């Protein structure tokens, strides 16, 4: 457990962050008290509103990596939801139906000569969460058909939705008052007092909203949900293979991002007491994107800073700077300088920011991840334990629960005209180790892909533990206890070793978005257990991975990446482990070390299906060898039998005399 405590005792940094947070909070609360200027407080309140928008977009773009160019649509939805339900725009006829709502003070009866009318008076405090829910609903509605699309298509479709929403708002003027905009929207009331037009109450609501959404963002980021988002951002296919439901996870990001915007929309309209379609067009979506990019995609503090800075730049600084330029122009007699008005060129500045940030500082002002230095010699050798398998008893139990093994029958896969697999049969008995060998391009990896649901098949049956796998999406196949590694290593490169292994457990953990935010005791226990389990798994590889648990995977050596990938698969508590060339790129010593470790896993009760070129590894591990060539099974048997098989010799070593010449030599 020494390593466990090691992971948790990185206190100094956390302490420093706490102090900084406290200072910022105090400054934010004190600002209107110290600086008694209504216009400036109003600007600060707007800046805070944009910070909440940036936080929402950051969940979509920064965490989940989905480029949303129509984010302002959700802002508009939240704004109009509140606007319509608190203004005189929509006034149905009064009837008994409305009476209960009147008692709840959601509506008022307005006397009218032609029959009494209903005036909606839903409280701001109710609408704040309700608008968030409505916007989230639209997020799901827009997202469901489009989230399957490639990233760049998604961008253009969201741009489309971002355009459609203001157009619809403009066109259905009976509900929205069209281009003229909603008027007479109620100001919020608290304890019987209306907020009115003073800036400071709005300011405090806004910074409370920022604080709340920052808290939610951080909690989500550091949870099972946040890890799943980042996994999808890094490598969608690998995420699916590790048990992440892509569509659901993306929809969740979309919905939560939309909810943030919906709540902000309500706040914004309550503050302005008006709403027009022009307030929510493409330029607003881009402005929020600029804030996120500027502050740092994925960085909670970064996007808040980005939003506040850019918003205050517009409302405070640009005018001042323009003034200074004019003064300078007067001073040095350059009349052209007097014509410069930077406030008009804010969008030009946005454009420049986007380009310069992408070219020179893609991580933004406050990068989401810090660069880590390589381990020192001491750190590398601090942990001397090698292969602590006894601690993995949990894995063994899970694996021994008893299953009937994997059965592949007549599976065929075609790519265009090419037959990658032709009616392949294969069984892996529970607790067995089966190796698949064959020349490159013989269909081995295709076999893995079809078993794990990454490739569609053209006929055949795949059953695991009596359950049909064909047609199941990859994340459900993992749930059934089938985990894999990839020949070309598909790790989440920008995440730490620990996070990679934690994502492996995704399917075995339960934390949903709500639990992630509130962290009830059960969730805390689950998270701690997940980390303990991850550490145990890393411990499998002795001092290879444990000291590097917090390092970014992209900085590891080839052999260590292979190990992390196996650890990630093991973390999902599989019943069967599919290893695609686990020793490729390893030297003989590393190869033997890994072979021993795989053997130990097997001894714990894990069933293993292995693609391997190195025949000595195969001989050492496998009970049975299946030989593929041109997508067909050409031989099957014990390692000894297979080595003596003529067809295998030909496939692998070349035909006839050529092969014999070497064999005899």
């Amino acid at each position, binding site marked *: 457990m020494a390593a466990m405590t090691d992971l948790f005792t990185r206190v100094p940094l956390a302490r420093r962050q706490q102090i900084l947070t406290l200072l910022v909070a105090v400054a934010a609360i004190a600002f209107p008290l110290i600086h008694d200027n209504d216009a400036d407080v109003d600007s600060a309140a707007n800046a805070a509103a944009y910070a909440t928008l940036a936080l929402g977009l950051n969940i979509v773009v920064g965490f989940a990596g989905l480029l949303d160019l129509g984010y302002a649509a959700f802002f508009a939805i939240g704004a109009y939801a509140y606007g319509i339900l608190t203004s005189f725009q929509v006034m149905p006829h009064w009837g008994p139906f409305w009476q209960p709502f009147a008692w709840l003070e959601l509506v008022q009866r307005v006397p009218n000569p032609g029959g009494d009318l209903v005036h909606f008076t839903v409280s701001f405090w109710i609408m704040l969460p309700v608008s968030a829910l409505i916007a989230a609903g639209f997020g799901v509605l827009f997202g469901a058909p489009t989230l399957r699309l490639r990233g760049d298509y998604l961008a253009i479709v969201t741009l489309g939705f971002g355009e459609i929403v203001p157009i619809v708002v403009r066109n259905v003027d009976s509900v929205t008052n069209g281009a003229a905009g909603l008027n007479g929207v109620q100001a919020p009331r608290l304890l019987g007092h209306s907020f009115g037009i003073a800036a400071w109450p709005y300011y405090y609501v806004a910074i409370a909203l920022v604080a709340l959404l920052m808290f939610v963002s951080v909690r989500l980021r550091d949870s099972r949900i946040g890890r799943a988002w980042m996994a999808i951002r890094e490598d969608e296919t690998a995420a699916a293979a590790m048990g992440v439901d892509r569509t659901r996870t993306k929809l969740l990001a979309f919905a939560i991002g939309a909810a943030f915007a919906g709540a902000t929309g309500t706040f914004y309209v309550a503050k302005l007491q008006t709403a027009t379609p022009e307030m929510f067009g493409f330029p607003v979506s881009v402005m929020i994107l600029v804030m996120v990019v500027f502050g740092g995609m994925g960085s909670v503090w970064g996007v808040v800073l980005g939003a506040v800075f850019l918003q205050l730049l517009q409302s405070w600084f640009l005018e001042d700077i323009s003034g200074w330029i004019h003064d300078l122009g007067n001073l040095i007699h350059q009349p052209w300088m007097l014509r410069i008005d930077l406030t008009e060129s804010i969008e030009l500045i946005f454009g420049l920011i986007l380009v310069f940030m992408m070219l020179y500082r893609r991580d933004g002002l406050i990068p989401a991840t810090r660069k880590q230095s390589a381990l020192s010699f001491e750190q590398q050798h601090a942990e001397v334990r090698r292969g602590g398998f006894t601690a993995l008893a949990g894995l063994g139990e899970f694996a021994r629960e008893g299953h009937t093994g994997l059965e592949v029958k007549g599976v065929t896969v075609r790519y*265009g*005209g*090419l037959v990658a697999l032709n009616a392949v049969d294969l069984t892996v008995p529970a607790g067995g180790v089966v190796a698949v060998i064959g*020349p*490159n*391009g*013989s269909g081995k990896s295709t076999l893995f892909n079809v078993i794990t649901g990454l490739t569609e098949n053209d006929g055949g049956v795949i059953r695991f533990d009596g359950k049909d796998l064909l047609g199941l999406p990859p994340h459900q196949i993992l749930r059934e206890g089938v985990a894999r590694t990839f*020949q070309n290593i598909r790790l989440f490169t920008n995440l730490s070793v620990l996070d990679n292994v934690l994502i492996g457990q995704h399917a075995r953990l339960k934390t949903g978005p709500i639990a992630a935010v509130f962290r009830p005791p059960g969730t805390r226990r689950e998270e701690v257990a997940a980390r303990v389990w991850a550490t145990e798994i890393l411990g499998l590889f002795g001092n290879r991975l444990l000291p590097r648990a917090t390092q970014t995977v*992209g*900085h*590891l*050596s*080839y052999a260590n990446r292979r190990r992390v990938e196996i650890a990630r698969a093991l973390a999902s508590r599989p019943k069967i482990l599919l290893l695609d*060339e686990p020793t*490729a*790129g*390893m*030297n*003989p010593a590393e190869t033997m070390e890994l072979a021993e470790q795989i053997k130990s896993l097997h001894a714990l009760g894990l069933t293993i299906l292995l693609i391997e*070129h*190195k*025949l*000595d*590894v195969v001989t050492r591990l496998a009970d049975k060898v299946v030989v593929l*060539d*041109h997508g067909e099974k050409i031989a099957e048997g014990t390692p000894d039998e297979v*080595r003596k098989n003529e067809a295998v*010799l*030909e*496939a*692998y*070593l*070349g*035909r006839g005399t*050529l*092969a014999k*010449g*070497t*064999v005899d*030599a």
Partner: protein
Amino acid sequence: MPELLRFQDVNTHYGDLHVLKDVNYTIGQGEIVSLLGGNACGKSTTMKTIMGVVRPTTGSVIFDGVAIETMSTAERVKRGIAPVLEARRLFPRMTVYENLEMGAYTRKRGPDFNQDLERVYSLFPRVKERLNQVSGTLSGGEQQMVAIGRALMARPRLICMDEPSMGLSPLFVEQVFEIIQEINRQGMTIFMVEQNANMALSIAHRAYVLQTGKVVLSGSAAELRRDPSIREAYLGELQVT
């Protein structure tokens, strides 16, 4: 035999990954030299380093007496290095003829272009039959013929082949290897990455064995076939006795 290509202490990195480690190769004019090794040992990186897709971090690649490691791929092709890529990599929606044209991309179109076409047709009569077919619809074997033909259209002095046997039926593998020998007899130098070790050693003059980015064995093909240590290093993984 005059030297045509030489790697001198070449190191190659992908980001933090050190792929080729102080690698030295020498390939003489008119030779077939084979590069053997398991997956992910640096074979394809070697090919990419020769073609200039990857630049060595240190060390030198010398072709025909000139250091080429900083030259663009196009410059190298002009100097006479042509590739036969792994898995053929034809342009799938272009016709066979257009693929052959692409092979001659760096050359001026002159009468020798037609001579070279004729030469390809004589080596691969099947290619001539399929000239106007879109290459994505060819069989694997036919694609390999076009890929080799495409390399020949560059009028190279060195052809680098990356796993020419991959995914081909055994019968066709033999044909391909015969054609490689035939081209070699006509004077072409060939550097070939191949996992089909016995086949490769049966036609190569010399070979290098690569393991985790290092050359662990080298020598004449005949020597290597007899060398017991090759079993440990490479064939050992395929040991059959």
